[in-house]
């Protein structure tokens, strides 16, 4: 069953079609990757899904529900969460506060509750803090909850950002280049971590990634964008053999020679 369906989604900036008639179908519990050269429209597509941009044409369905044009916070409430290419934590808040903000969709108490601090609010807050600490343990940041996010090392910031996204208990998690700036070892850890998210938490993962080794090893389905247009779709092995893809990445000349060479997965 498809959790996310994109039908002919088009997003224009002035005369430029950043995303052009993109069709996409992400199956539940899948790890799905979007790849493509720089400027291919991958992040723009993410922004359309999460409600930051309203596509000019087409529609986006989450569990058969049309979410096109909803505001980002509504989309978050419906179960889509994301991370960013350049880490965007709340830098001057502590790690645990970052996670607590992520829990926003599940906190019910309002202004009056906050002022009067009735038993329900106290309980909710206490449970939220416990849950946040548990989550910190899950992303391997135990005991670092009181550090300001900006003072964490790079790899931990990456994980904290994913932790914040997980805090809203999303059905669909959008990861924008989660291994950017990591060395091979850290990258491998991140790949394992993403698999665990899917296997243990049952979250569907949609991923933008540049490192081919990562993409090929982790993805079940891949969509390739180039200049906003979908040029290929399929399993990793299908994508590797696709001459159009190779051409998009390496230019026309290289395509003929390379398309026959098998690529390790």
């Amino acid at each position, binding site marked *: 069953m498809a959790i996310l369906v994109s039908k002919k989604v088009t997003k224009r900036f002035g005369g430029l079609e950043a995303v052009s008639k993109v069709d996409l179908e992400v199956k539940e519990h899948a790890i799905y990757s979007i790849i493509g050269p720089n400027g291919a429209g991958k992040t723009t597509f993410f922004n359309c899904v999460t409600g930051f941009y309203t596509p000019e044409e087409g529609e986006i369905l989450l569990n058969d529900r049309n979410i096109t044009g909803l505001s*980002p916070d509504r989309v*978050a409430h419906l179960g889509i*969460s994301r991370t960013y290419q350049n880490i*965007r934590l709340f830098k001057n808040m502590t790690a645990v506060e970052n996670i607590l903000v992520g829990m926003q969709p599940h906190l019910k108490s309002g202004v009056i509750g906050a*002022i009067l601090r009735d038993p329900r609010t106290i309980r909710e807050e206490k449970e939220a803090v416990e849950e946040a600490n548990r989550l910190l343990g899950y992303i391997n940041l135990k005991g670092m909850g009181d550090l*300001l996010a*900006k003072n964490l090392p790079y790899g931990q910031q990456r994980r904290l950002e994913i932790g914040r996204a997980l805090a809203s208990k999303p059905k669909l998690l959008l990861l924008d280049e989660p291994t950017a700036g990591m060395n091979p070892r850290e990258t491998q850890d991140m790949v394992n971590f993403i698999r665990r998210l899917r296997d243990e938490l049952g979250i569907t993962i949609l991923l933008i990634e540049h490192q081919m080794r990562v993409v090929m090893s982790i993805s079940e389905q891949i969509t390739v964008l180039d200049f906003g247009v979908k040029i290929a779709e399929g399993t990793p092995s299908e994508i590797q053999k696709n001459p159009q893809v190779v051409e998009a990445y390496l230019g026309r000349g290289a395509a003929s020679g390379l398309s026959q060479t098998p690529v390790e997965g």
Partner: protein
Amino acid sequence: MKSETSYWVKTVQNGLIGGAIAMLLSLIGIVLAFGKTYIIIGLFSMGQVFVFTPIILESFVSARKAPSKNALTLLLLGGLSGLMGGVVLVVMIALQQVINLRSVLINLSPDLIALLTFKLPLALGLFVLIIAAVVIGVISAAFLLLPARIRGALSQAILTIVILGLFRDLIVTVITHWGFVRYAFLWLFALSGLSIPGVIVVFVVVGGLFYWRLGRKPKPVVKARTIQQQRLIRWGPMAVLGIIGLLLPVILGSYFSEILDNVGIYILMGLGLNIVVGFAGLLDLGYVAFYAIGAYTLGVFTTSEAVGIWHLNFWAATPIALIVAVFAGVILGLPVLRMRGDYLAIVTLGFGEIIRILVLSDWLKPLLGGSEGIQRIAQPSIGSFIFGNQQRLYYLILIGIILAGFISVRLKDSHLGRSWMALREDEDVAQAMGINKVATKLLAFAMGALFSGLGGALFATKIGSVYPQSFSFIVSINILSLIIIGGMGSIPGVFIGGLALVGLPLLLSQFADFRYLIYGAALVAMMLVKPEGLSPEARRRLELHEEIKEVPYEEPASVLKTPGELGGR
């Protein structure tokens, strides 16, 4: 010994700087203006404090930073620094004898010269001035040679004497209010400054007290505290503060209660703006608008003049004033939701002006009275008890502050507080995390407007009338400065900022024309020394003072560079 030789040069520099500051203070007239304000009656005036403090400080600094710790060297350095300071002043006076500088520097009067030369004949006076400067320099250097304990006690005693002498008038005003207890204190003071016995007593008592305190050994840390003790530690200071808060107007009398009321209203508004600017990061420069709306609404609904409507009492009209203010807050909030930073500041600034101009307009004159304002605004009363004077009104303001402070604390520690903070940090991401930008921002504006409206209502009933002039742009700026001085986002900071910013100028009325000069200098100095504010929020302190660790950023792995793979990037 090159470094030591160069240090003598440095000392000469320091001394010249001290002299230059003393000269500057003399030339702006502050020295002469305080020539008759005695710290110790007949002996020592505030004017002399202004002249000699820069010289003392520079001599002290010269001696303290000296590379050698040799006692004689230190004294020589202090003396040299003092000499240089004295020389600057002497040159100034001598120059005046040769060419008439007074046409430009109008404060360089014979009176000033007489004051600087100790009312002696010129040549002798100049000589004594130099000697005095050198002696002062040596003494301040000698200060360094004293044991820390004595040094601490001495400096505290001297500081106390200067403060008591300077604020003699205000203190005496308060003391005379204390019934017969006043006789226990009044003899410490003279007609101006402290009396001779007063100085001796203060010196001995304060000096002795600090000597004793500095000598105490730190108590061993108590390891286990019972829950009751913990509660006492937590609530004890609060209770003491509360009692002092309740008794303040009684202790201080009506003059200071007036100041307290003003400070209180500013604190109330500061608490509101702190939510908007400090918590939610929305720079609002038109905050005075809600203050005006609160005040005018109360005025319109309670005035016994013909222009008013309904002629309600204070208690019935205040909720209306608050509702109108909150409504205005939401109205302002809606169009500016998309704006950030500077743009928001400009729009809110405009909003503040719109309200002021509306109030002044002929169109609304039948209702709001135009430039004549609204008079005869009702005073709050319970039964036959009327909150008619400043002391009684204080309690009403206190209740408002406690309420606002309580709500601020609770909201700050709730998930709403976190939402505000998240919006302040990164609006886009906050939204992607499920925070409703519209509702959260409007709530901040509404809370801010609520407290400001309450402040306005209290202000209107305190003055008994409202005029457009009371609601100028400078009020917004003052409240914003109050928050910045106290520490952005910090609730205790609002109180400290309010006392410092609103209370201090009133206390500084001592300084007459120089009050804004001193005030401005103090503000600049404070922002340089403590940019995070006087009572910063713990988080801000971290932001500004914690060493920012380098985030290790490694080059993207080069695993893709082998031929045969599809290269990203």
